């Protein structure tokens, strides 16, 4: 029985490995796209606040930023695309901040 399960497990591994890295499901923002402010503006704002932004992308309708926060932590942070409110900051999977 278990021997018959092995190919299934292998096929499953391949399916998961091949699926595109879409929304991570960690967080969601549901603002209408028309109201979004630009990602470049968020990056500029953050830089002014002492962040070093390496990369920014969209995840679950929120702006996701990779970089160094003003305290010097290498983090991954989520911001609301309209209000630019900081929603979630995590360092290597460890949550440092979560908006109430």
């Amino acid at each position, binding site marked *: 029985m*278990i*021997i018959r*399960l*092995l190919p299934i*497990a*292998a096929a*499953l*591994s391949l399916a*998961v*490995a091949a699926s595109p890295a879409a929304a*991570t*499901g*960690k967080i969601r923002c549901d603002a209408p796209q028309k109201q979004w402010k630009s990602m470049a503006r968020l990056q500029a704002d953050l830089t002014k606040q002492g962040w070093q932004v*390496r*990369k920014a992308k969209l995840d679950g309708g929120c702006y996701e930023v*990779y970089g*160094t926060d003003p305290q*010097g*932590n*290498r983090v991954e942070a989520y911001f609301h695309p309209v209000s630019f409110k900081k929603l979630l900051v995590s*360092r*290597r*999977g*460890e949550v440092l901040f979560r908006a109430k």
Partner: protein
Amino acid sequence: MNSLPTSKMILWAVLAVPAAVTVHRYATVPDIWPGDLLLPTGEWSARLIIFALMLTPLGQLFPTSRAVNWLIRHRRAFGVAAFGYAVLHLIFYVLDMESVAAMLAEIGAPGIWTGWLALLCLVPLALTSNDAAMRRLRGGWKRVQRLAYPAAILTLLHWVLVHDGMATALVHFAPLLLLQALRLARLFNRNFTQRKTI
């Protein structure tokens, strides 16, 4: 100089392909960050550790399979390659973090220290993966090589903690967990029947 058997050289070449692809990507893709290559190198290291550890239970299940026996004879290549990918993973991490201070600052994060410990477990394994060490250590060699198990567990923890969602990690480890469970079940069964017959 004695030449390596062809099958061994082909295996090494195959195992080096993902590394070549990764380094090529790093050298040629514009705007790529070292951090972008953490995932593929870490995944290959984990896959190879898993694969190397699957060989013993596979051998018990299929003792007459030529393919399995060939793989078991070449297990060292998989283990050493796993270490190689772990080192590549570390190199991209160091390049990404840029400073020792930055690395020390986050060493307490569970997703990070589990990775460091997994790598530390692999160092003695890699250092003793040669015939001379096997001869020198005799019975102790096997004990050193058993570090592969804590290395695998720490790798799983590191992956689950540092990555978004644990699905990929668990799916990768599922075949190994299944085989080890089967191995334990058979061991338990054998002991049980032995006790009954005595």
